[in-house]
């Protein structure tokens, strides 16, 4: 209509909303259904983990770090322990390295699976896919409980090793779990990969490698743009250089590519776990650590490949028994920044899907 004045509407999505993965709040500006602008507002789950850790002994910060990415807590512990070990020059027991890898990969599997389930949920499916993956996660949590004593936050890694030795039959349980998960993965894919899923995900939020790197994206999001990069292979930490696995890449850089990368990575994790279970040596599970722990003055940055991307810890020691500064470089936080640029001129429904595809865990974003 000539002369008609149109205006955008501002829509507050969250912090209470069915599909904001916790307490994310997005200020969106809509022109009808089209998103003109979207700005995530963070901080609803900010627990000051970094500040808390500064006032605690090194080992006391461990449970706090655990609570960052609550879907794969073991990865947080792992990277924090690695940072302290590097700073204090602690060697890790051989057997513990294997246990760490198994635990990390188990958590990576569940991270990817729960992500895939909730992505489909964001695309508008009923709870079916999500509950399929949560059902499998339940079995994993049982495994974690058996070895560490608690389900959600295992608090299992220690400087120089791990807390407890493997209970009897646990390794067999792990193998059984993988077999079940492998079968269920086929089920899951049959359920999810329908034509509707294709039209909703193909070509949405396309990214080029160059953009992705400039945004600071890492992990599956970067690999989905065709960039062959995985810290486990290219900067091997722990004992990842001993395992044989592939780094999955896709060309398109859209939602579908991200999905493919993640689902394929689950299979690679199966491979790694199987190898680790086969090769695990006997021996002590934890090396002696000086007590109280007073690393030399200095700082270090350690990063690992979490299920979401580059998870890093920057640790500064002033020679006392508490960390002087602990910075967590969490992938969710860095990746979420890209939403602002990605969603422009997509539909409202895509906004939800794109936010879902980034794989944010709000504990990881807000810390």
């Amino acid at each position, binding site marked *: 209509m000539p002369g008609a004045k149109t205006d955008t509407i501002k829509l507050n999505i969250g912090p209470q909303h069915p*599909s904001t993965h916790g307490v994310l709040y997005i200020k969106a500006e*809509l022109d009808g259904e089209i998103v003109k602008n979207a700005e995530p507002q963070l901080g609803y789950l900010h627990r000051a983990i970094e500040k808390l850790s500064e006032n605690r002994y090194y080992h006391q910060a461990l449970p706090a770090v655990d609570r960052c990415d609550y879907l794969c807590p073991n990865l947080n512990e792992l990277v924090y322990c690695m940072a302290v070990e590097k700073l204090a020059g602690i060697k890790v027991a051989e057997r513990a390295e294997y246990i760490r890898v198994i635990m990390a990969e188990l958590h990576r599997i569940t991270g990817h699976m729960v992500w895939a389930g909730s992505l489909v949920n964001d695309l*508008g499916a009923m709870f079916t896919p999500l509950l*399929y993956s949560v059902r499998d996660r339940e079995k994993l949590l049982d495994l974690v409980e058996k070895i560490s004593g608690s389900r959600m936050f295992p608090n299992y890694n220690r400087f120089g090793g791990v807390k407890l030795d493997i209970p009897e039959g646990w390794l067999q349980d792990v193998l059984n779990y993988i077999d079940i998960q492998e079968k269920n993965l086929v089920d899951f894919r049959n359920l999810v990969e329908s034509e509707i899923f294709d*039209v909703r995900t193909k070509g949405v939020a396309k990214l080029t490698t160059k953009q992705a790197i400039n945004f600071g994206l890492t992990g599956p999001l970067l690999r989905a743009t065709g960039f062959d990069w995985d810290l486990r292979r290219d900067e091997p930490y722990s004992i990842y250089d001993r395992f044989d696995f592939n780094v999955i890449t896709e060309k398109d850089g859209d939602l579908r590519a991200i999905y493919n990368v993640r689902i394929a990575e689950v299979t690679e994790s199966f491979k790694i776990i199987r190898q680790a279970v086969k090769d695990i040596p006997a021996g002590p599970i934890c090396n002696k650590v000086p007590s109280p722990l007073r690393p030399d003055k200095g700082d270090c940055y350690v990063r690992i490949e979490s299920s979401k991307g580059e998870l890093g810890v920057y640790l500064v020691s002033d020679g006392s028994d508490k960390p002087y500064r602990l910075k967590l470089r969490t992938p969710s936080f860095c990746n979420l920044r890209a939403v602002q640029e990605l969603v422009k001129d997509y*539909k409202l*429904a895509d906004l*939800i899907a794109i936010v879902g595809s980034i794989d944010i865990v709000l504990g990881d974003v807000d810390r």
Partner: protein
Amino acid sequence: MSPLVRLLVSLAISFPLLLLNVVFIIWFERKTLADIYGGIGPKHHGPFGLFQLAFDGMKLIAKEDVIPAKADKMLFIIAPFLVFVPAFMTFAAIPVYNNIYARNFDIGIFYIFGATTLIPVGIILAGWASFNKYSLLGGLRSAAQQISYEVPLLMATLGAVMLSGSLSLVEIVKAQSKVWFIVLQPFAFIFFFIVMLAELNRAPFDMPQAESELVAGYNVEYTGMRFAFFMFGEYAMLLVMSALVTILFLGGWNSPIPALNGLVPGITWFVLKTYLIVFIIIWIRGTFPRLRVDQLMHFSWKVLLPLNLANLLITSAILTVVYL
């Protein structure tokens, strides 16, 4: 019997029956969905949790009736009825058996579609009156969706109408006593089924409610009994549409197995077929993600409409040849 008494009696019988059916469908949906995603569903009240809905109803009645401060009060109150009433009106034209119906309209199909076109009005009003952006978006989506799906819906119906040569639902079923129209008009059946899902706002076309985007769309501000009216209206439409599919394409009360003709009352077949369709709709909801708004429109205007037209052309060509 004077017409007034007749009306009262039929109301007294049919209305509770309909409500029971609707309630049963809600229970049935919850149970089926639970089964699909590996849950249990309602189980505490009565056998298989059958009385769950009675308790839900009690809860809804007991709830506070909230009208948002800035809402348009009049429209806000009217809207649920505009959804609820037409949905129940349509039942008047649905024949359950040869002689079991409220009214045998000569233009039964026409009447049903006439009544159902009122529903989007209620939804848009609800979306507008709530003074909520989510419900407004839901209402607008619903309007766009219903308008663009009305056309292919009527066209898909025409397939059956052309074959039977009547707009009366009873006549249409009678025309299927030998061969069901799903065999003669398979494409029309598929189109009708797809379009029906959109018309019902059911997954994968449930944009107006779009839980993951619009929270609950147009009924986000409704509580208590007002919400229940929306719910009842929605599920009543589900029942009507399933019954309509049965009548138009699945041979209504005609027995699928000729040997059982006359042994099993036709009404059983009708109910079974209707619930089969209901089940399929629920099944789809439990499985598929949602389409996007623009994809929905493309699908309607660029895919369904031309295909429907082609189907009609071919049908009429064949009919002309046959009857020449």
